[in-house]
């Protein structure tokens, strides 16, 4: 068995593990719309505040 074959097996083992054991795990959660809106809101507040400070 060469390294390429072993690596292919390891890849398949990992993909199968993720498919079967982690598909519903929060580690693979999407970023929610609320979280994205909060993030963009914080960025927006800092951007607008610093833009106003620079303009004054």
């Amino acid at each position, binding site marked *: 068995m060469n390294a390429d074959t072993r690596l292919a097996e390891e890849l398949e083992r990992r993909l199968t593990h993720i498919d079967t054991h982690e598909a519903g795990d929060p580690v693979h959660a999407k970023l929610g719309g609320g979280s994205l809106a909060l*993030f963009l809101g914080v960025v927006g507040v800092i951007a607008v505040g*610093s833009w106003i400070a620079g303009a004054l």
Partner: protein
Amino acid sequence: MSGSARGRTSESAAELTETQAVRVEAAVAEEATFGSLPLTKSERTWRAADFSWVTLSLAIATWAFLTGGSTVLLVGFGDGIAAMLLGNTLGLAIMVLGSVLLSQRLGVEQYRALKSVFGAVGVAIVVFTVVLVTEMGWSSLLGIMFGRAFTEISNQAFGTGFDVEGPVVTVFALAAILAGWFLLSRGPVAISKLNRFVAPGLLVIVALMMVLLMSQHSWTDLFAAEPLAPFEDETLNFAMAVEFNLGAGLSWWPVMGTLARLTRGPKAALWPAYGGIFIGTVVAQIVGMAAALMLGAADPTAWMVPLGGPVLGILTLLFVGFANVTSMASIAYSTVLAIKQSSGRVLARLRWPALCAVFLFFPAVLALFPSFMYGQFMTFVVISGAFIAAICGVIIADYLILRRQNVPMRALYASGPEDPLRFTGGVNLAAMLSVAVASIFYLWVYNPITLETLPIFRYATATVPTVVIAIAVYLTLNWLLYVRRGRGAYGQTDPFAAAGRK
């Protein structure tokens, strides 16, 4: 052959097979550490606090002094802080949305994950142009800064009188790159162990530098200080300072996704990647700005000894010098991974230390020109930012808008005609054309070499409209070329739908 001889031969064969098996296991372990295999949950060990320390330690590294010093070439201290906050918050937000979310959800290294956006060959084109050049430049700058620090130490400790832009700097820079290779070749564990000491140490040193600076100058003087080399137009100065800081924020894109795959949720990736870098940059950049305005040089290698005295100054420079080596190893790690992924079978066959040496050869060549690299720092940051802004725009359009965060994980590892992410001969033409169009637009709005600008630049910067154009062009072209023809694996069932949203 006697029975005992046959027995010995049989034992040797068994030992040989065992040795081969150990080597194969070692190759797999190496690939898992340095390669593209997806991480399982048990290997994704970083919570938000862990990732925050990592990003904070990266951001507070010595390049932030240079960024701060370059900002106050154009604007004073107050406007510099505003430009720094505005540029970094926008640049980091674009960078984070274009890097960490994709790798984090899948637990896959950034450039493997980007196959879903650019195609396998397209990723290689991005890696061997934008990523390689960007990281070569930063690695080289860190080496040169190390060289300047040790040249200054030599001058102060031994009275040598070496030129801080001369050949001795190159010799020390090459030594730093060699030390970076030594650390890098021992893998990410060695890098993270050193960072645990370097990051808090740098925090203390940055605070010490600010205290030393402000013990000899007043805040009134600092806020009243004129910018070092401004243009006549104040609005243009501020816009250029913002644009430069946007480029600095975007410059984290090549390394951030690969780090984020180690985190355990989208929020644990998003906020630390943005907040850690933002806070670290702001703190160190303020010191760089203050030093440049009060002492005429942002680079602590130029003023630390005169300001802190020979003992404190030399100790600080020693620490700063070695911190540059860990920073170099940290950013080179992701780049070498990217090179390994994208080079096909040619470089993928090289052992990790040899691959690290191949990458670090290029910064070593650039280190032969220390004066040029320091002089062209702003231009380098802005040009690399032009391409990264366009790339991030395309990634945001693909991952967040078209795919709605749903990438077929197995397809990332598929190859041949049955590969759902084959696009056109391994290249997503829509992505590559969009990057080209948006980058050209950027350089039309703001030419960082001639410093010519269009009127829109003064109020909208070049990066923000570039990202918008990249998104719009990509959505149009990609729909025409792939989505409407059912190619590119868009609109598939999400295998992680049960994982929910966070």
